[in-house]
């Protein structure tokens, strides 16, 4: 097979793959154009799920300003909503990594194009591409590192990932807008089904054009376009297989061979996923012993209860999942305990119960104090749980008592609860 002759043919270039060209780039671009908005929306939903506008204790990005324009009070129905949106956010983000890498591979000759800046327009667009590539890699990297508890990034995960995403999306949207017509043209230029029937022996470079993606000095093909697409697809499939089980749970959890929450930490009623063990946050046996008291506050009323007294209050059950911002989750667990609304009534706030500020015994770490909104307190499934799956809570699941609220992010289901201040937010 002889390379096609065109202006610049034979020019020496390190980028000689005969597969590079606007069509291949557009296929990857289209996949990202569908996938990245899903990541963005599910990410925004996750921020809303924390109810950051309710209280400063819920908000890790209090300087958000206009970027919080869309916030709304997070619902308690359906109870599995956050489980799905955050599972999709993390799993899809990981699955899109090969597509992102392939897209960047397909356009790498543009990085070295000459002259580096042709005009003011070209210069500004390249500046925007730096935000696109640097911002995109930054957001993916912080997410991937955070779910593995590898906090090596320069700051707290929440502001880095949240503001980083806005920087990335600012560049992503303008890139998508400016390139959309060319993407559509390129995709129409070749028939996907025909491409998927073309073996390596009949693979030829795309016709040279003004995009600068087609190699002027293409090497003989060693893989077809369907082979390259298949390889990227296989990469996404491999990542899906070794990751998704941690969000699905049940017998599929063990299939998530490389994901952080891929095994149950134990057997029995308390043998489900743990975010932070008691030991990890410095909760001692003494903290959880006979001296433990639950303090209820409402207005100027305050009530202190022993665990026995809490156990004598009307007990209710609810089947609810734990769903973590890190993407893993558990199927429904059967919780038993006292309704938050009933506890509000004990301090005289039973009618139209307000929100509540929940404090943990935990001495350090984020979210040891969280604020729940009134709709969360009023949901009859929202409990101060004492038991799970028919047994006492284990120390790692928050003994003597923990919060469980339908559809709330896992970290707001406070463990080792010591005080509930109804009508307070900070």
């Amino acid at each position, binding site marked *: 097979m002889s390379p096609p002759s065109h202006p610049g043919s034979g020019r020496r270039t*390190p980028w000689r793959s005969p597969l590079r060209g606007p069509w291949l780039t557009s296929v990857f671009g289209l996949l990202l154009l569908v996938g990245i908005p899903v990541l963005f929306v599910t990410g925004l939903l996750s921020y809303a799920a924390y109810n950051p506008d309710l209280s400063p204790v819920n908000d890790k*990005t209090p300087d958000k*300003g206009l*970027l919080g324009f869309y916030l709304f009070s997070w619902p308690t129905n359906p109870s599995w909503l956050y489980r799905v949106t955050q599972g999709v956010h993390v799993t899809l983000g*990981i699955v899109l*990594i090969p597509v992102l890498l392939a897209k*960047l591979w397909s356009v790498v000759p543009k*990085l070295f194009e000459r002259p580096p800046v*042709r*005009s*003011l*327009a*070209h210069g500004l*667009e390249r500046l*925007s591409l*730096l935000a696109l*590539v*640097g911002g995109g*890699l*930054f957001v993916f990297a912080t997410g*991937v*590192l955070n779910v*593995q*508890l*590898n906090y090596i990034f*320069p*700051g707290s995960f929440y*502001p*880095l990932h949240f*503001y980083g995403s*806005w*920087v990335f999306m*600012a560049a992503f*949207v*303008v890139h998508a807008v*400016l390139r959309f017509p060319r993407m559509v043209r390129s995709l129409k230029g070749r028939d996907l089904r025909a491409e998927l029937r073309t*073996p*390596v*022996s009949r693979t030829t470079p795309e016709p040279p054009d003004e995009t600068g993606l087609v190699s002027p000095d293409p090497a003989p*093909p*060693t*893989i*077809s376009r369907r*082979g390259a697409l298949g390889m990227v697809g*296989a*990469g996404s499939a*491999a*990542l899906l297989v*070794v990751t998704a089980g941690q969000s699905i749970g049940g017998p599929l959890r063990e299939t998530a*061979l*490389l*994901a*952080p*929450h891929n*095994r149950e*930490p*134990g057997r029995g009623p308390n043998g489900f*996923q743990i975010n932070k*063990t008691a030991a*990890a946050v410095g909760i001692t046996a003494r903290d959880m012993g006979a001296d433990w008291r639950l303090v209820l506050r409402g207005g100027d009323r305050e009530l202190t209860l022993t665990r026995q007294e809490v156990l004598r209050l009307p007990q209710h059950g609810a089947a609810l999942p734990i769903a973590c911002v890190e993407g893993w989750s558990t199927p429904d667990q059967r919780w038993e305990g006292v309704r938050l609304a009933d506890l509000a009534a004990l301090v005289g706030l039973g009618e139209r119960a307000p929100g509540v500020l929940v404090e943990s015994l935990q001495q350090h770490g984020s979210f040891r104090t969280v604020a729940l909104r009134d709709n969360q307190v009023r949901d009859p499934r929202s409990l101060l749980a004492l038991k799970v799956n028919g047994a006492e809570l284990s120390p790692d699941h928050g003994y003597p008592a923990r919060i469980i609220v339908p559809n709330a992010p896992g970290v707001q289901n406070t463990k080792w609860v010591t005080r509930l201040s109804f009508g307070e937010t900070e």
Partner: protein
Amino acid sequence: MRRFGFRRGYGDSPWHLLALLCSFALTAYAGVRLLDGDWLGILLWIVGAAILHDLVLLPLYALADRALSAAQPAPASWINHVRVPAFLSGLLLLVWFPLIFGEQKRRYERSTGLSADVFLGRWLLISAALFAASALWLGLRLWRARAGRAPRPSPPAPSES
């Protein structure tokens, strides 16, 4: 005529400039919030991510791929049988390396109550299985080609069957 004057001076249409300026305004609005803190570290991470990918990772794997191709002058029938498992294994490592190398062993174990020792072995086993399956597939192809005395000079690439 003025529009053409703009295009000559700027290099594109006014809409192009308007779209970019809107984008930069949002970048600046989020950017000052992003950089509030260890701004130098964060900037280094963002620019470093682009540099690390574009000038280190990508050239490295491109060179490795070229070295593989150069091992035999003509496009070899086995090349994708190495390329595909190597790509998949490398990809899994790229995403899950903190767990595979036990970067945060203590934090992971104390947080989750799970052992951090399983990941390296699993990744090695997955990689071994991928290469073994690929080799088996190549063997099968070559055997079938010989059995059928395939007259075609260039059999289809392996990742495509």
